[in-house]
């Protein structure tokens, strides 16, 4: 599933373990992680090892982990979790290990490609995402992808002694199709042209 760039996404493998574990040193990894932030590194390591071990390409798995790879090595991780083959739905989580890429088109394109994988390959009907309100970059990315904010859970998560809201986003297949039509012109474009086109679009959208 190559992007038209040197960066692409692929299934996560056990060999990615050391890279993913090294991202755990980043305090953002813990802050944005759902669940108890007090989990020890050993517990987290054990969880990640188990998750990667379960990432089978042959069965109908409950979760799939995709690595965002580049010639310099992995730069991020996409997790498709809670996959329901009956409801044809899953949730998506993105973690960019390389901080310089968090706010850029690489993250956006990786999510777009992961959504393509969800709808075109896994034949899903709905992709959801639970995102903390303080994780502005992530929920803006979901909104750019056409997802609708469906839930606002007030005072839902405790971080640094303070309660924060959480959002739930939902993207249905028909909404993704609309997004695909919007970006149809990007097909076959070089990354430089895509960035230029995207910038032009953003400038047109922003009020002068």
């Amino acid at each position: 599933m190559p992007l038209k760039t040197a960066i692409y996404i692929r299934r996560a493998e056990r060999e990615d373990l050391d890279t993913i574990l090294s991202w755990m040193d980043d305090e953002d990894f813990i802050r944005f992680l759902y669940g108890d932030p007090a989990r020890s590194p050993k517990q987290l390591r054990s969880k990640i090892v188990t998750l990667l071990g379960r990432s089978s390409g042959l069965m109908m798995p409950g979760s799939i982990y995709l690595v965002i790879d580049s010639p310099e090595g992995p730069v991020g991780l996409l997790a498709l979790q809670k996959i329901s083959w009956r409801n044809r739905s899953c949730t998506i989580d993105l973690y960019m290990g390389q901080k310089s890429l968090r706010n850029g088109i690489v993250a956006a394109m990786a999510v777009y490609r992961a959504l393509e994988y969800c709808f075109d390959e896994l034949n899903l009907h709905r992709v959801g995402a639970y995102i903390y309100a303080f994780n502005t970059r992530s929920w803006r990315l979901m909104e750019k992808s056409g997802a609708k904010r469906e839930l606002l859970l007030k005072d839902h998560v405790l971080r640094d002694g303070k309660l924060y809201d959480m959002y739930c986003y939902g993207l249905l297949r028909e909404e993704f199709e609309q997004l695909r039509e919007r970006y149809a012109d990007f097909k076959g474009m070089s990354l430089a042209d895509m960035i230029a086109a995207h910038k032009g679009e953003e400038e047109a959208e922003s009020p002068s």
Partner: protein
Amino acid sequence: MIRGEHSLIRTIELDDAGGLWQLYDVERPLSFLLDRRQELPLPSRDDVRRYLERNDPQHGQYYVVEDATGQVMAFCGVRGGAGEHGFAELGILPFADSFFEAPACKEVLAFLHQLVFFQLRRYKAMAHCLDTEVGWCKCLKQQGFESSGVQRQVLFTGGRWHDLETFTLFRPVSEKETINAS
């Protein structure tokens, strides 16, 4: 065992597995029975029995609601009471939707309120409601729950998609003060 004017509420026992099992009905999906992937499982009686054996706050606390003759009218329960989060999810599983309009329902809700905010000391109660659970939805609103939004087309059963609404109730300030003072 809690005896009210219209109901008797007691902890669930393994012998109740058969009754609870009857409620896993694709024709009448109940949101409180959805699993973490929001699927409605179709368990065997043994599966339900095994689930009840783990009747603790981590997996959920379930109770039986009987009428004066000992007839089971509903089950109710709370999930998430032992997690690191400050909220818990509550639910009622009646055999007939008319239960939500019966006086016994008010007693059950009062019991769950007490359980979530005082016994488990949660600051927030949550509840989910499928688009077909009209009585449950109305009941939650009457109890002061506010909608946090609707997740669209999350469940496919009975040949169609269902939406799932989430409701929230925060512990009232006066009750917080009571807890602090005690």
